[in-house]
């Protein structure tokens, strides 16, 4: 009986091959699926871990006003002043907007922060202080586009930022770009000789994208 079964199997050699291939494919599929499941679990663990590890750093010019957390400015809402309430861009008043610009200026990353990077590799791409400044200036820009009535206060901030010698050069240049745009819309010119040559050169890049 065994012999006749073997004969049958031998006659159907291609079926056996197909079965073997299927078994291998199923095995590999399970292995891969398992890996993907593990990597998703790792992702969840990593994000929890990151939340626990990350703590805000003090990098501001003079953190005189103790505002609520602004480390990661949200896109559409923000926490301002000493109040615990959340304000949307629509709720901002001239006072709260001015308060926000002062907070941003006080918390602005500085050139010193770039000299204290954890490793030289961090300098290679955009270092964290530059990214942080980008988040701050991005938020400000978003507000000014939605609430153009704050432009004057915005220009005051941009002037302070562009003139701040301790500020990161690219950040100063972007502030000068925005200041120049504001002045141009009001038919005014900026005295570029007040700013370092490199800041002016870089601001030109921002003006002519």
């Amino acid at each position, binding site marked *: 009986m065994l012999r006749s079964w073997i004969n049958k199997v031998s006659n159907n050699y*291609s*079926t056996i091959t*197909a079965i073997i*291939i*299927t078994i291998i*494919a*199923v095995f*590999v*599929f399970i292995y*891969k699926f398992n890996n*993907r499941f593990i*990597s*998703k679990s790792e*992702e969840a663990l*990593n994000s929890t871990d*990151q939340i626990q590890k990350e703590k805000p750093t003090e990098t501001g010019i003079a953190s005189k006003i103790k505002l609520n957390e602004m480390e*990661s400015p949200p*896109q559409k809402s923000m926490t301002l002043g000493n109040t615990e309430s959340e304000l949307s861009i629509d709720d901002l008043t001239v006072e709260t907007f001015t308060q926000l610009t002062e907070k941003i200026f006080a918390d602005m990353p500085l*050139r*010193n922060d*770039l*000299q*204290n*990077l*954890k*490793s*030289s*590799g*961090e*300098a*290679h*791409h*955009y*270092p*964290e202080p*530059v*990214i942080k*400044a*980008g*988040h701050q*200036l*991005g*938020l*400000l*820009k*978003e507000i000014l*586009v939605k609430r153009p009535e704050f432009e004057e206060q915005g220009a005051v901030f941009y002037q302070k930022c562009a003139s701040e010698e301790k500020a*990161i*050069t*690219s*950040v100063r*240049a*972007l502030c000068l*770009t925005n200041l120049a745009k504001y002045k141009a819309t009001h038919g005014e010119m900026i005295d570029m000789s007040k700013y370092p040559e*490199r800041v002016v050169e*870089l*601001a030109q*890049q*921002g003006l002519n*994208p």
Partner: protein
Amino acid sequence: MKTTLLVISLVLTQSLFAANGEIKCSKKVASRHEKKILRDIERLDQLKFSGETSAEDLSILGVDHVDAARMKDWLTDRVQYIIDDSEPIDRLKLDVASRYYVYPEASVFPDMESVASGPVFGFQIPKAERAVTVMSNIGAVLYMAGKSSKQLLQVKIPLSLFKADKVLVNSPRTGIIQIGEGLFMKKFMFNEKEDDAVSNSISRLMTFFHEARHSDGHGKSLGFLHAICPAGHDLAGYSACDRNLNGPYTIGRIMAKEFLNSCDSCSENEKEQIRLGMIESESRVIRKTIIPGKDEGMEISMLRTMIKSYQTLIELTPDGASRQEYQNKIDSMNAQLQNLLAQSGKAVEVPSKFWDANPEGTR
């Protein structure tokens, strides 16, 4: 039954080994990262490139115009494999494919500006703490290592359980790029709220295009090595600048500009961050270098020695406050030096040039 089984196996294997386009990921790259990278590249199609790229920028990129297809080709010409930072260079499966290999321009190497803290291709050289890896061009590093030892290297990149590519490192265009968690960290994103935002893809693509440029060059320009940022620069002492006008930071600036003008779905907030990225990239380009003239005098010579001493001190000092104090002294002495040089009229100002981007080797 036979046919059914074959169809099932075919479908399963196809789902596992489906081609990833032209860029292949090592099996050690987490699938969530692989998916993001491949989607980022696909997203180039969603951008509406203006077609208003300046003639100089087109010449730097070496293309006749900028559109999604051209830029995908540009990238995939220079990036073929992505490996994870859990596969450091000393743990890669390297073989010598040929001893005494005759490299083109065998005796010509790029000038490597020496400073202990300097990553040349974005390597992580730990100082006080190890930082997260964002991205490094390992292919160019391996090519240069092979060239300097006169051996042709071959690296085995595992792509799946049963598949590995043996890659001959016979050109900097081998295009092996190493990525790390830093590329995907929330705090580095333009849009921290929406992980899937187009601006976050743009942020990663800007890094990719920068790294891809390291796959270019030959002889002196091989790998478009970074330069040490000069005294007075925000990143003085770090190997994070370019002493040419068409290196990785210039590519970063050009692409940031293209993305800024082509991203319809980006908010003003995100666009402002891309704009800062563009300016930051440009700030890394050293446009002129002041070199000393002959017989410059005792005072200038002393200042140079003092500056070098403080630079060494910075490299040896882990304390951030002291480093800053030394940097301030360097800045002040450097300003003094520039004045003296200007007065003496002996310094020579050398403008940076465009380097030849044609790749070395056979790929």
